[in-house]
């Protein structure tokens, strides 16, 4: 047992080395904008840039709309599969997981080809961007909601609520959704973390989003990108820490795992 413990510590040390050094180095690098001394000059530049806040807020807005549309689309679907049409489960699951097979670069290519000319020209409308984000978030959202619904006794809960005279709306909003709150929140935060820094769709559909902005800064400047990298890391960390916090002790939280 002793010897096995040592090996584990060595593995852990090596992993920490690999994962923490880039973060530390990036942070220190971001402080070197002024020659010969450490300063937050690059950070000041980033925060003072009006494009930073404008693109960031744009991406946040897109993320929030994506979350709302995604949940509005997937909660009823998952409920329907669980309660009314269990036979459709396989089909819905395949569709919800399909975005894993279609990389974002391929998805956006197809979206542009389909919707760039009449009868439906959507390329200049944010609908296409949001639709793309909703598709990308399908797997995470569906998995989270499905896990949540599996972890509660959905059928008994709905039957109990309805036999007590609750309407469908009351059953949904006061019984089912509160019970899978943790799942819904983890789906939301994960989607948030993915959409806010997303590059592929935003750049190809030419939207002034945070991802393309960061890429542009990376081409033009030296130290500011490092500051942006740290900000993004903290943002991702914040979203996932909230998932952990909210799902502590609650059933049915989704395990976050990324796709790029």
């Amino acid at each position, binding site marked *: 047992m002793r010897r096995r413990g040592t090996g584990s510590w060595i593995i852990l040390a090596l992993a920490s080395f690999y*994962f923490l050094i880039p973060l530390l*180095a990036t942070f220190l690098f971001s402080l070197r904008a002024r020659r010969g001394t450490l300063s937050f000059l690059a950070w000041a530049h980033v925060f003072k840039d009006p494009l930073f806040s404008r693109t960031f807020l744009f991406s946040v807005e897109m993320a929030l709309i994506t979350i709302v549309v995604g949940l509005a689309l997937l909660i009823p679907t998952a409920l329907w599969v669980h309660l009314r049409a269990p036979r459709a489960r396989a089909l819905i699951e395949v569709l919800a997981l399909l975005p*894993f097979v279609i990389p974002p670069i391929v*998805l956006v290519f197809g979206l542009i080809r389909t919707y760039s000319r009449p009868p439906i020209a959507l390329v200049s409308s944010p609908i296409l961007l949001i639709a*793309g984000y909703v598709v990308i978030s*399908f797997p995470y959202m569906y998995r989270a909601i499905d896990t949540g619904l599996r972890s509660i006794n959905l059928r008994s809960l709905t039957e109990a609520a309805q036999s007590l005279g609750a309407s469908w709306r009351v059953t949904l909003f006061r019984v089912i959704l509160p019970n899978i709150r943790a799942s819904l929140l983890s789906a939301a935060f994960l989607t948030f973390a993915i959409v806010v820094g997303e590059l592929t769709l935003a750049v190809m559909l030419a939207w002034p989003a945070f991802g393309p902005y960061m890429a542009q800064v990376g081409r033009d400047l030296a130290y500011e990108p490092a500051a942006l990298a740290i900000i993004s890391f903290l943002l991702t960390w914040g979203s996932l820490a909230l998932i952990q916090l909210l799902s502590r002790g609650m059933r049915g939280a989704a395990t976050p795992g990324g796709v790029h």
Partner: protein
Amino acid sequence: MSTVSEITKGAPLARPSAGVLRRWIGLAPFLLFAILFMILPAGSLFVGSFQDASGGFTLMNVAHLFRPSILRSYWLTIEVSLITAVAGGIFGFLLAYAVTMGGLPRTVRSLVTTFSGVASNFAGVPLAFAFIATMGRVGLITTLLKQFFGISLYDAGFNLYSLWGLVLVYLYFQLPLMVLIITPALDGMRREWREACENLGASRLQYWRHVALPILMPSLLSSVILLFGNAFGAYATAYALTGGFLNLVPIQIGAQMRGDVLHDPNLGYALALGMVAIMTLCILGYTALQKRASRWLS
């Protein structure tokens, strides 16, 4: 057949088509959305890869996939994905093993899991920036090594903007992803199996060779396949790191879309088709192996 029981239950006798309709109506919004924004676009790429510039049927685009330059970029993408999947798989497994069964405190485990969740989602542009700031030509580690140890990474043959540089960067999200997906499998390994082996006088090596690895193998393989697909479709990280310098397939598709190089959208469609084909194989392999894995670990 079900009508019999419905009659006996006294359920209203609906025409079958109406019953089917009622059963599917709740799924209609999702199905419609999926068709409009996923199936149709993907289908249109499929159609487009068999069309020439004027819309006539042709197999030329698919044939062009076998041009040396395109084959080379597929091969490069497969190489990057394979190396990072296998390396990420091995190191991720070791790390997951260390935190689940390696006798480390429980706090370490939850720290590593949380960090893995973050790191596996920390990809794209900021990840590329972090590595440029660390190991780029004027990165912190590069300059420190030169200043204090007289070691010049780039003279020694290292290049962040090359295949191995990309591997180093991709591992930053591949390894944590492996930790996340293999941990449940490791948790499913029963203590009794090891104890039974020990009671029967097996060594640790024998336990791993004859018991643990065979049980874990489907999970390990399916995880590696998932990692492969994860790297195969990655665009943002490679784009931000190399600015399209490395000829990966996603980068090539992006270039065809932007019209950077010899603009030929139909070839782009074929490239995309090839990608989806490879990804589909990945997912099929993944599901088949997952089914095997669930025989022992559930």
